[in-house]
Every structure is written in C-alpha cells, then in structure tokens.
C-alpha cells in the first residue's frame, strides 16, 4: 500500500503541473479580471442589481441574459463611470430610473466589473480589457 502511494505521488504531481500550465496566459488574465470584478460587484452593484443580477421589479433593470449588455458593449464603461438617466430597453421592458455614477472606480476596476457582469447571470461575452475601457472612456457622450 505504502509503495503504491510513493509511486503515485510523483505521477499526480506531474499531472497537476501539466494541468495548471495548460491554463493559458489569457485564461489566467480572464480569471483575474473576473474574480476582481466579482469583488467590486459585491460592494458597488449588488445592492441595486441583486446578487443574482435580477434587478428590482420594474425599477432596476436586470443584468441576467441582458441584450442591453451585448448591444451597448462600448457604452458600459461610460455608464458605470457617469451613471445613467432616462429610459432604456432591457429584454423588451422599459426602465426609467437613475443609476448613480461610480466615479470612484478606476479604469481597470471598470474593466474588471464589466468582465464579471458580462460573463455572469447567463451572459458570455469574454474578457473586456482595460485598454478598451480607456478608449471607451475617451468617447463618452
């Protein structure tokens, strides 16, 4: 029994090493964005948009499988930084509330939280890098 364990130990070690290194550079970057983004979501977004992204009735739009996120990719950074006022359409419903500006968030934090939101709650849009956020923020309406 002991011999078996001694034999298996280096084998499992090698397997784990292979597995870990198989995660490519970009996958690790994505995960880093996603996990940081989740932390930001918990403290800055969750109160209104809810833990599971369902929003709040007809008052606060959902982030769940939201077509709005797909159609307005390039606007998300500006919306997070400057807030949003006026009517918008999300999944066929109209919302007309006011989202407060999150001016305290840095571009990297905005990129992280966009990555988290657009890859949670039934969304799958991949990583949204800080370079793109910097471009978006320069073009805010």
């Amino acid at each position, binding site marked *: 029994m002991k011999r078996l364990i001694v034999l298996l130990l280096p084998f499992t070690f090698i397997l784990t090493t292979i597995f870990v290194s198989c995660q490519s550079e970009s996958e690790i970057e994505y995960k880093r964005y996603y996990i940081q983004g989740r932390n930001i979501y918990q403290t800055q977004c*969750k*109160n*209104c948009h*809810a833990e599971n992204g369902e929003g*709040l*009735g*007809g*008052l*606060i739009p959902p982030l769940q499988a939201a077509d709005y996120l797909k159609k307005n990719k390039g606007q998300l950074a500006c919306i997070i930084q400057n807030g949003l006022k006026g009517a918008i359409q999300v999944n066929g419903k109209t919302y007309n509330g*006011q989202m*407060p500006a999150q001016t305290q968030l840095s571009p990297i934090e905005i990129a992280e939280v966009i990555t988290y939101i657009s890859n949670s709650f039934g969304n799958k849009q991949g990583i949204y890098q800080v370079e793109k956020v910097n471009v978006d923020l320069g073009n805010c309406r």
Partner: protein
Amino acid sequence: MKKLMWPVMALLAFTACNNKVKETKLPIYGTREPITKMVGGKQVTDTVYATIPPFSFVDQERQTITENDLHGKIYVADFFFTSCPSICPVMQRNMVSVAKAYQGKPDFKLVSFTIDPRHDTIPVLKEYAEKLGAKADQWYFLLGKKEDVYQLAEKNYLVSVSESNTAPGGYVHQGWLVLVDKKGRVRGAYDGTDKKQVDQLIVDVKVLMDEEENPKT
C-alpha cells in the same frame, strides 16, 4: 434491545427540538410600566407596553391610513425614499420576499414610510409601488408630514433617520424592518439588508400569527 435504543433516542432528540420551536416567543420592545387596577374587588397589577401612537398618512392610492387600519394586523414597517441609491433597493427587494411569503393573508400588511415627502409625492409613490410589484391592499407606501414621519421613526419604531448633505441621496437612515403585532407593539427589528435576518423575520411573522391564534397569556 440495544438495536432499538438508537432510533428511540433519535426520535426523542427530534421531538425535543420540535417542542422548542413551538415555544418560541418574541420579545416586546419599548418602554413598559406597571399599572394597578381593581378587577372584581381585587387589586391587579398589569403591564402596559409601548404601542405605536395615532397617526394619519396617505397611501399611494390616496387613501388615508391611520393606526386604526393597522389595528388587528401584523405588519412590517420600514423607512425609505424612492430615489435612495444606497440601501433601499436591497431593503425593498427583501420586503418583496416578505410580501410574497404572506400573499393573500388579510391580517398581514407591509408599510413603507417615505422620509423624503418633498420628492416622493403620491404619483411618485404609486409608480414606485407598481414597478416594485406591490399589491395596494397588502403594502402601503405612506406619505406624511416630515416631522411626523421622523418622530414616529425615532420614538416609536426605534429607527434612526435624518437629512444629510453628505449621505448618498441626501438622507441617512437605518435599514431596519420593524415587526409590529396586532396590538401595535414592536416585536422585532431585522436588518433589511441581510438576507438571513429577513428569513428570520419571515419565520417570526408566523410565530406572531400562531401566538394570536393560541393566546396563552
């Protein structure tokens, strides 16, 4: 014989726990004073508990709601304002879950007092209530004079509220959901931003309902 012992003990442990649940009683908050009165020629000392005093507010349907409308009802009260960006959405989301848990129970109500009467006019409250999916006969959104609301909040519901230039949205307030019994006595306060406490509130409403059905004292 030994084989039998374990199931019997398990059963005992189980029923013991069950009994405990049944005996749960909620505390009565606020000041209390003893009064002595004569009942049938004998001197009897009784305790008078603090209750929510008379008030008169208007709800989202323009109906006048007073303490009489809530007499004989178990209700949960909170203080909020519609443009509140901080804790209100999560509080009201949790109020929705309480409302759903006791849908169709005529003896159970929810009451949300606005602390921003300048902005939260009746049409604003009505739109807010409808968008939240609140049923007008179960959940009152009440508008009243600012002094009255603040006094009621601080003195009677034991919730701290105030106006502030530095707070997000312009007001500071605590997120308590306050449980009130059929006699107008405060029986519990639960953090409306904490899902676990709200789940406890839902359980405690049932405790109050059972207490009213089988009064022991």
